[in-house]
């Protein structure tokens, strides 16, 4: 909807967030760290926008990124009169940080059990299958008070060696920046204009294609920004490694997508609508990494190994979390509710029909991405998001 000011957009999204919005669930020093990182990150986005405008891939545009006092996990972007607003709920940041703390507490677990359920099986779980202590992480319908208290209580039961704190911060930063670059891609690639010009009968398919393109762009831009940040750090004499960065990126994006849907974990649930299944989005993330890394074969193989290692570690941690939740570590379920996998990243049963289904969905997504990009002005003038 046009006609709103930035202040209107922020107010609708919960009002501006401050260092004390989430209290201990996101301590003020962590809030300040997130806010500072976003400012630095935005400088990279400004450069990417300038370069895209210079090569004619996008018209000049302006945007603002705001942290809002909302408990939601859903970042959004909206077009205002003269610029775009990228709105990041502070609840999303707090949830991501706590999820990183929780999952990293399983870092040293060797050979965790696998959660066996195929995403081909159309089983729908309710939010009642989420144990009480994990509701703040996985359930969307919680208000800010419930979120704050829930995360605070969960924090008390997480036993994480303080040595992981830099990793927690970095995973939080990478997951949040991937979300922001997803929204930024909607703007950079002109999705709003394409969708506005589409008739009702084409809009749903176009929207699904735009979401695919935004995921793809988010990965390419995240990689590009990481590459630039590492070069900058090295030029200042600081230690920085692309391998570690990629491992963390693979972990962070897998973790984030695993938080996206606690109810619909089967492929058929995503046959329609704007979004693909989180597991499919994770696979497409790897495709995007593969396309975006333009290094000699040997270096590229090393990079892909790092990002895959991050994914593997995260899936192991998610499986451990599910097993411990089933064992009752995070509280009891209401009478009559059965334990269920907590997330949609059901990689435990790949092979056979699940593989066939996944390959079919990947092919469909690839076709749609090609189709949508043929209609995007950004791809008529020297490509959309730059490769790293």
């Amino acid at each position: 909807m046009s006609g709103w000011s930035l202040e209107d957009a922020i107010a609708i999204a919960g009002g501006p967030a401050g260092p004390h919005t989430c209290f201990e669930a996101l301590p003020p020093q962590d809030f300040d760290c997130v806010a500072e990182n976003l400012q630095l990150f935005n400088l990279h986005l400004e450069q990417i926008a300038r370069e895209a405008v210079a090569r004619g891939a996008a018209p000049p545009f302006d945007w603002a990124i705001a942290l809002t006092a909302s408990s939601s996990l859903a970042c959004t972007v909206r077009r205002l009169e003269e610029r775009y607003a990228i709105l990041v709920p502070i609840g999303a940041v707090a949830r991501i940080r706590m999820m990183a703390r929780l999952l990293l507490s399983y870092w040293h677990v060797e050979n965790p059990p696998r959660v066996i359920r195929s995403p081909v099986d159309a089983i729908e779980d309710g939010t009642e299958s989420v144990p009480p202590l994990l509701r703040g992480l996985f359930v969307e319908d919680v208000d800010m008070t419930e979120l704050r208290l829930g995360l605070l209580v969960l924090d008390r039961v997480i036993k994480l060696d303080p040595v992981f704190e830099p990793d927690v911060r970095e995973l939080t930063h990478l997951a949040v920046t991937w979300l922001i670059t997803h929204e930024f891609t909607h703007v950079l690639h002109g999705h709003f204009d394409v969708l506005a010009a589409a008739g009702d009968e084409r809009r749903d398919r176009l929207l699904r294609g735009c979401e695919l393109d935004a995921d793809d762009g988010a990965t390419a831009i995240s990689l590009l920004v990481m590459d630039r940040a590492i070069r900058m750090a090295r030029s200042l004499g600081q230690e920085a490694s692309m391998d570690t960065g990629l491992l963390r990126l693979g972990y962070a994006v897998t973790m984030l997508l695993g938080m996206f849907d606690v109810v619909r974990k089967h492929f058929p649930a995503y046959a329609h609508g704007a979004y693909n299944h989180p597991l499919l989005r994770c696979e497409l993330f790897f495709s995007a990494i593969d396309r975006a890394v333009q290094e000699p074969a040997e270096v590229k193989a090393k990079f892909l190994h790092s990002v895959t290692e991050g994914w593997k570690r995260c899936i192991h941690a998610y499986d451990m979390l599910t097993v411990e939740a089933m064992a009752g570590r995070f509280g009891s379920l209401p009478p009559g509710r059965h334990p269920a996998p907590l997330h949609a990243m059901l990689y435990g049963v790949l092979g056979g029909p699940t593989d066939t289904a996944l390959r079919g969905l990947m092919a469909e997504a690839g076709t749609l991405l090609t189709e949508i990009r043929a209609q995007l002005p950004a791809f008529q003038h020297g490509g959309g998001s730059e490769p790293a």
Partner: protein
Amino acid sequence: MPTTPDDYLALSPEALDLEIGRALMAGQLGAKPVPDAEARAAAARWFEANLARFRGAVCGHPVVQAQLLDKQAQGRNELFAAVIDALGKMAGIPGLPILALAAKLLHYGLGQLCPVVAAPKP
């Protein structure tokens, strides 16, 4: 899907918030669907933040004033129509569902919205 005034007046405050919230968020894009709870919360926040504007637009309407002075003066549908009329003339609510907004104002209570209308002297 509500279509008639009776449909809207029969909706719960939560259902009205959901419709208003979805309209407030129309056209925005994101990496995942915005949950119903967030849409309802957005509507509640926006409604609270705009009470003064609603007061300015609605409380002076003759039908509303008559209702405030004599609780039996107007039927609910007449009052609903008057609030729709007043909101229709209000600027700054582009694309919002006026019927849902009017129904929400009736749920909120016109007496609570317009507390300072004085009774005429006999």
